[in-house]
Every structure is written in structure tokens, then in C-alpha cells.
């Protein structure tokens, strides 16, 4: 929490002082059923409506119900790049929340705890500002005894709203949208709990806070998480068919598509298994309109054979991989970037496919559309690689111009004179299938096939054709690579250290750059959103730096490089490229990146 100015009466008078702040990190710790995600969601949405930036981070237990869970929200009037290393305020519902999360609280930070459940430790009283409020019993008092544990999240939100002078009218509107369903009493209870918290005397908190006005953004903001952004991006891109099988954390996307697609005349099918899902989605794509499937962890492994077919048969497809900790069942609700290898190389044989990775929630929306368009243009499967962190992270971003963006990709069934599905003379090897239903006037119909084939799709054992077709499938991707924009360096284009990242880590890496440069260190960063193929020209960027450190949430591997690190090493043969890796299942803290970069640089290149 960065104080700007302090106004109001001095605290000696007993009146609360009001500090102007430009951002705050609030960590809410409880159990998964306490509705703490709801508090975080309301805060995030409110920030979005107040033209503030917001980023959230949550952990959920992998168990069916109960278990410790946290939701961290960082709200700022300026740019918010990560969910924050340390919290300014900890809201602790239980003893385990209190003891487990005080370490994430800044020295001198405020711990707001439910004194019905938490026994504060005397030895910690000096380090943190303790505020105990019997949240559970006061909630019961406010809304009646029947709903013992329900509503205390809103009571706590009331306390937070008071502390940070949040816009009550906007919050009430959000409650109305969330609870204003059939039963008016639910909304009334929510409002009662919230106002009881809001009007509770903050007692020994002798200051409250007020956000400075945010930098005005153009237009309205929408607030959603990465999984939602992908789902709506696919709909905007014109996807109207897909199939999937439930697996965390991909499931939200399939639920969204199942629920939303019928409005647009589309269908999303829940299949008997992962293999059926990708097979059905490829069937949909073959039917003439790019379709989608997706999964996480082991589900992706199951899909690889069919993926190879789509590459061989040159049928477009979008596969969403919401990565989680692996291998095997691994850490289903933790964040990891360890599916890059399977995304780029998974499958038998030489099977070039496209892999792209959005950097933030807004990017999830636009890259879902890009994935569809690349798949269509190059008749190739595109894997959209996100992770558990970005999937559940809520961000606000400028509302897209949907009228311009939403596209219609209905199949074109106009009869053609003749058709070669695998025409070797096609420029850059790019050919397209005709959707079934298309009349071919010369009476020669194609077969989409997984066998090596001739130009009509009929099987061949010819070594020459196999080489030509391999080249065709490769050349398409090279053409795509050549068309990709060279990513821009964040910070000066030359210097000592270049941090390279991909996927959801863009925010913390940029914040690390900002912090390092503020301290006088020469650090820049480069974020890759297109990974297979890579854009051209990266070697020119790397040549401007002494150290190229690839920051990834995956293991350092047998040879000391993470998964992207190994690809960049192989591609550029540059000994400057090294890795900063971790697999603790949590997002990068800015501090961690900086410390690891520092020790890496001081260890020097000789280490390798």
C-alpha cells in the first residue's frame, strides 16, 4: 500500500485519519466454502467499474469441499502487473488462515481477523497491526441465526469497504446483479450483512484509506478471468462446435461453451473421454467450421494421437491446454508451465503444429480469436497454452469492440470444378479442405486421411511423397513464422540482462524489470506469445544483452534449461541463454525473479 498523502485530523484526537493510496493488496484467507472468492470477485468487479486496474490470485484445494483457500486481490489506480508479492491487508477467518498467511503480510500491515475463530499470537502483535472483530457472531446478529456461516464474507466485505472508502452504491448494484434472482430475501440478507460490517466501528484501526483517482482509460472495462476470456473469445471468433471432458482447470471453459453456444446456434458436447472429445471436435472441423476441444494435464496426453491425425490430414482445430502441475495427476489446482514440450512436440512422427500462449486475461480473449484464424488460414491444429494462474485470475480490460470483432466463419459449400486437398504446388504448402456437402463437378472426391497420401488424399508408400508432404506441413508453419511480428523488448533494447518469459508470467516479469531499473540495474524483458513457430529476429534482440534468462514455471531439466529455454538454446545455439525455473506451484513473486536473476548473473556464464 503506497501512501501518497495523509489528510484528516491527527490520530490523537481519536478521529480516523484518511490516507491517500494508489494501490492495495488484500489477501483473504479462509476455507473454500466461505465465499471468499465472492469477496474477491466483488472487489475485482468494483475495481473494473471504477476504471482501476486489478489482478487477482487464488488457490483452491484439490478436494471436493472444504480445505484452506485464499483469494488475493490487488487493486491499483496505476498499472497493476501482478497480484503482488506481499499483502497490505490480511483477512483471516480461521486460526490456520491467520498462522499460515501472516508470512505473506507486509511488516506493519493490517491483519483483520475473525476473533470468534482466531487466537492471535502475542509475539506477532508488534510486527502487524492486529484488528480482531467477531465476524461470525456479528454476522449471525445481523442476519439471523439460521445462516451461521453464510454471509460472513459479505460482513467482511463491509469492513473492507469501510476501510478503503469503496463506492457503496456500486457495490450494492453488484450485489443486486449477483443475488437479485428469484428470492428477494437472499439479496436482503446480503445487504444486511454487508451494511452491518460497513457500519461496524473500526475501533483501533486509526486510519482509513482512499484511492487516488486512476489514470482514465478509454472506454469501459470488462472484468473476467482467463478461462472466461477464452470462452468468449472463441465465440467471438465464430466457433460454434466443440467437445470436451471435464478436468481441472479446463472445465470452466467447457461449461461456459456448453451454456453459451446454444444462443448462437452452436453446440458443445460433453464426451465419454478425452480421446472422443478431440475426435469429435476434429469431426466438427472437418464438417467445415473450426471446432474446439481442450483439457489440462493428463487429458492433453490422451489427445495427442488424434492431434497427430489433424496435423497429417491438415484439418484445422483449436486445442486449449490450461496447464497445471504434472506429470500424471500431479498438482491439479496449482500453476505450472510444464506442458510446453508436449504442446510443441507431443505425438509420434514429425508433426508440426502451432503453439501460442496468451500473456494476460485480455490476451486470452484476443489470442483465442487468433488461434481460430491461424487454424483456418493454415489448416493446422493450434494449441492455446494457458495455465491455472491465468485461468482463475480476474483482470479488468478495455471492452472489445464486439461489433467489429465478432466474425462469421460458416462453411462455404459453393460447388467447385475440381479439388486437390493436398496440392503440392500450393504456395507455402497451404491448402484447405472442402467441407463435405460441397459438390465437386469433376466427380473426384477427396479423403481426409492419417495415412501418408498423395495430393488427392489416397494412400501412398512413396518415399518421395512422404518427404514432399512432410515439407508441405513444415513449410506452412515457416510461412506463419515469417509473418509474425517481432516482439518488442520491455525496457531498453540493449543492456546487461534480458528476462525472457511466456504465458501468464508477463506481469511479474515486467514488474521485476521496473523494480530493477528503479534500483539502477540494467534489466529488460521479452515476452513470447508465439512459441511454435517462433517469430523471426529474436537473435538480434538477444545479441543486445550479456545475459538472456528464461523465466519459467517448470523444472530446470537434465541439462539446466526449462522447456522454453531448451527450445531457444536449440534454435539459437547461444550460450548466453540460461534458465530461471521453479515448480512450487505458485505464481512468480517479483522478488523471487530478481533474486534468482541476480545470483544467476553473479554466478556468471562459466557455470555452464
Amino acid at each position, binding site marked *: 500500500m503506497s501512501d501518497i498523502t495523509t489528510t484528516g485530523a491527527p490520530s490523537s484526537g481519536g478521529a480516523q485519519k484518511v490516507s491517500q493510496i494508489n494501490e492495495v493488496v488484500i489477501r483473504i484467507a479462509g476455507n473454500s466454502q466461505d465465499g471468499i472468492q465472492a469477496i474477491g470477485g466483488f472487489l475485482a468487479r468494483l475495481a*473494473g*467499474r471504477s476504471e482501476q486496474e486489478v489482478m487477482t490470485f487464488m488457490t483452491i484445494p484439490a478436494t471436493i469441499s472444504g480445505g484452506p483457500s485464499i483469494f488475493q486481490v490487488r487493486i491499483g489506480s496505476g498499472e497493476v502487473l501482478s497480484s503482488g508479492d506481499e499483502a497490505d491487508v490480511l483477512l483471516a477467518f480461521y486460526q490456520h488462515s491467520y498462522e499460515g498467511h501472516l508470512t505473506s503480510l507486509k511488516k506493519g500491515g493490517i491483519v483483520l481477523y475473525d476473533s470468534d475463530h482466531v487466537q492471535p499470537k502475542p509475539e506477532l502483535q508488534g510486527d502487524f497491526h492486529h484488528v480482531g472483530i467477531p465476524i461470525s457472531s456479528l454476522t449471525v446478529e445481523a442476519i439471523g441465526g439460521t445462516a451461521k456461516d453464510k454471509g460472513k464474507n459479505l460482513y467482511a466485505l463491509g469492513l473492507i469497504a469501510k476501510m478503503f472508502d469503496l463506492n457503496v452504491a456500486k457495490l450494492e448494484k453488484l450485489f443486486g*446483479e449477483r443475488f437479485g434472482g428469484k428470492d428477494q430475501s437472499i439479496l436482503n440478507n446480503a445487504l444486511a450483512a454487508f451494511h452491518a460490517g460497513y457500519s461496524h466501528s473500526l475501533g483501533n484501526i486509526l486510519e482509513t484509506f482512499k484511492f487516488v483517482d486512476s489514470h482514465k482509460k478509454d472506454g469501459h*472495462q*470488462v*472484468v*473476467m478471468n482467463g478461462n472466461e476470456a477464452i470462452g*468468449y473469445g472463441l*465465440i*467471438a471468433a465464430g466457433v*460454434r462446435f466443440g*467437445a470436451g471432458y471435464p478436468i481441472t482447470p479446463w472445465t470452466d471453459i467447457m461449461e461456459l461453451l456448453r451454456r*453459451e453456444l*446454444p*444462443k*448462437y*446456434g*452452436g*453446440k458443445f*458436447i460433453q*464426451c*465419454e*473421454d478425452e*480421446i*472422443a472429445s478431440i*475426435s*469429435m471436435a476434429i*469431426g*466438427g*472441423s472437418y*464438417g*467445415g*467450421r473450426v*471446432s474446439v476441444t481442450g483439457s489440462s494435464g493428463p487429458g492433453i496426453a490422451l489427445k495427442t*494421437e*488424434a492431434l497427430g*491425425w489433424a496435423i497429417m490430414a491438415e484439418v484445422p482445430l483449436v486445442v486449449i491446454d490450461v496447464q497445471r502441475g504434472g506429470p500424471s495427476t500431479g498438482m491439479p489446482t496449482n500453476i505450472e508451465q510444464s506442458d510446453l514440450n508436449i504442446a510443441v512436440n507431443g505425438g509420434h512422427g514429425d508433426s508440426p503444429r502451432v503453439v501460442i500462449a496468451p500473456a494476460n486475461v485480455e490476451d486470452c480473449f484476443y489470442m483465442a480469436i487468433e488461434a481460430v484464424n491461424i487454424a483456418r488460414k493454415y489448416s493446422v491444429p493450434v494449441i492455446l497454452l494457458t495455465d491455472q494462474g491465468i485461468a482463475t485470475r480476474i483482470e479488468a480490460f478495455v*471492452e*472489445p469492440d*464486439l*461489433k467489429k470483432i*465478432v466474425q*462469421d466463419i*460458416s*462453411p462455404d459449400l459453393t460447388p467447385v470444378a475440381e479439388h486437390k486437398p493436398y496440392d503440392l504446388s500450393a504456395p507455402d504448402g497451404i491448402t484447405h479442405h*472442402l*467441407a*463435405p*456437402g*460441397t*459438390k*465437386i463437378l469433376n466427380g473426384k*472426391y*477427396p*479423403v*481426409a*486421411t*492419417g495415412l501418408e497420401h498423395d495430393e488427392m488424399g*489416397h*494412400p501412398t508408400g512413396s518415399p518421395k511423397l512422404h518427404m514432399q508432404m512432410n515439407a508441405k506441413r513444415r513449410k506452412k508453419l515457416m510461412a506463419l513464422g515469417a509473418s509474425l511480428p517481432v516482439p518488442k523488448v520491455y525496457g531498453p533494447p540493449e543492456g546487461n540482462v534480458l528476462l525472457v518469459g511466456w504465458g501468464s508470467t508477463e506481469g511479474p516479469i515486467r514488474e521485476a524489470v521496473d523494480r530493477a531499473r528503479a534500483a539502477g540495474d540494467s534489466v529488460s524483458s521479452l515476452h513470447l506469445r508465439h512459441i511454435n513457430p517462433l517469430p523471426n529476429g529474436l537473435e538480434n534482440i538477444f545479441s543486445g544483452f550479456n545475459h538472456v534468462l528464461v523465466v519459467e514455471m517448470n523444472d530446470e531439466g537434465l541439462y539446466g534449461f526449462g522447456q522454453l529455454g531448451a527450445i531457444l538454446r536449440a534454435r539459437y545455439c547461444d550460450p548466453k541463454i540460461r534458465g530461471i525455473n521453479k515448480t512450487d506451484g505458485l505464481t512468480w513473486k517479483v522478488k523471487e525473479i530478481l533474486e534468482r536473476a541476480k545470483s544467476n548473473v553473479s554466478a556468471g556464464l562459466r557455470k555452464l
Partner: protein
Amino acid sequence: MSQTLTATSAATVIPPAPEERKGLTKKEIAADHPTWCPGCGDFSVLALYFKLIEKRKLIHEKITTVAGIGCSSRFPYFVQAHGVHFIHGRALPFASGISLSRPDLHVFVFGGDGDAFSIGGNHFTHTARKNVKLTYVVMDNWVYGLTKKQTSPTSPLGFKSKTDLWGSVDYPINPLKQAISAGATFVARTTHTNPNHVLSVMEAAMDHDGFSFVECLSECVEFYEGAFDASNPRKGGVFNEVPKTHDVTDEAAAYKLASEPFPGYFGIFYKNPKPTKNAREDEIVKSYQSKVAGQADWEILQKTFDKMK
């Protein structure tokens, strides 16, 4: 609203051909020469598929032929129509993807017993229970042919193969019972040695609005010669048609009839139409679309985004 095929096409069977148009000739519908061994039962199935297309005046572009992996699954290469040769065991979900997104097409799936009941067993069960509209013809030869004589899920006990030199020890699957218990709405059995019967069963399967399953015995002369002689009158066997008194809507009776030892019966065992997956999904689409009638896709999405502000 962008025009979607789901919304605009009637989910009926094949549209009736105009009177004046002739059916496609064998020459027009045949593609590559089949790669099957001389004498293979699959030749008859292919010939009768051509006959079906000709007789019912189906047109090239309105049918799609899908197969998985196996000798019989080479089928699509031999048919002059949009075709798909997919991966082993997964032809049904692929075909379902076409069927559910393109109601204007009739999807025929061909395959063998390994594809259907071994590697693809899960998909067989679920496609049947969901009653996805498509026709599935399994050419059952009781052996793995493409890989040259290993035990198949339908190989009888004692069958000597390269993976069971002493004779198969695993109890075989009964495809008809499997289909009936999975909830298939059309279950029939025929054999390649009786062409007229194959054609009539395929026609009935095609006309069925739902998942129509046909087990067609198709002898592998190379690796299981004589397997079906007991069902072939020309080889001294008997060809018993399903009794006229059999009630095809009686699931228990169908199951019982399917339990008869080889050669058993031939014909339609079970036929009990119920709403298809296609129809049920279309209902959902219809009801959702009625709520957003007159709005362009971007306007529908805009409404959703407005709630996320």
C-alpha cells in the same frame, strides 16, 4: 444471427431425390480399387453400399463415409464421396462431430470388430446410448486381419491365432447384446454371403432416425477361412432369419434372440426409435435462440459483456 447449419437445416434423413434424376452408377461412385485380399467378404459390403447409393439415389456430396483403422476401415478410399480415414477405434466420435454439426449430411461409418469393440469399445457404448444419428456397419470377421491373425474381441474361445497359439482363452463379445444393452435404437445382423439381405438391412439402417448398428459377418479368407460356414447354406449351413413373430421393440426378446449360439439369426433384432442426440441438442439450441431472436451474434455477446462491467 449468423446463419448456422444447425438452425436452418431440417434434421431429416436423406432428402427424397427428384423423380427424373437417376441414381449414381457404380462407375461414378467407385474410387480406388480395393486393397483387400481376393475373396474377402468386405468386397460384398462395398458392392452393396454402392447398390444402396444407386438404389436410393444418394448423391456424392450428401454422404460422408468415415472409418477407423483395420482392413475394412480402408473403405472410404474406395468410395467416390467425401471420406475420412481416421485413427484406430475413434471413427464414431469423429462421425458424431460431423453428424451433430452437419445435419444435412448422412454419415456412414464402416469398421471392423477390433475397431468397434476393442480399442473403440467405449465410444461404441456412448454413441449408442446417446443415439447419435448415423449408420454404423461393423464388418465382423472374428480376427485381426490387417496385423495378420491375432485374437479379436469377437474371436470364439479356442480360436488359434498368433497371440493365442493354444487357442483363444478370452470370452468373446456378442456385438448385438453389447449394442442392445448400450441403448442402441436399431440393431441388426447380416452376412456378406447374402447380398439381398445385406442391402435390405443397410437400407433399413439408413432410414432409421438414430444410431443404427449393423453387424455384418464378413469372412477373412486369409486368416479365418470358413468361420461363418455354419451360416451359409451354400457351405451346408443354415441362414435363419429373425422370426416374423419377433417384436423388434421388445428389448428383452431381442437380447434373448441375440444370445442364440452361432449361427443364430439374421435381420433386425431391435428397433425402437427415440429422440436422437441430434434432435435433443437442436431443441436446446431452438429454445435458447428464441430468447435472442433478431439479434446479431455480436449483440448477444455484447449483452453478456455488459453484465461483466
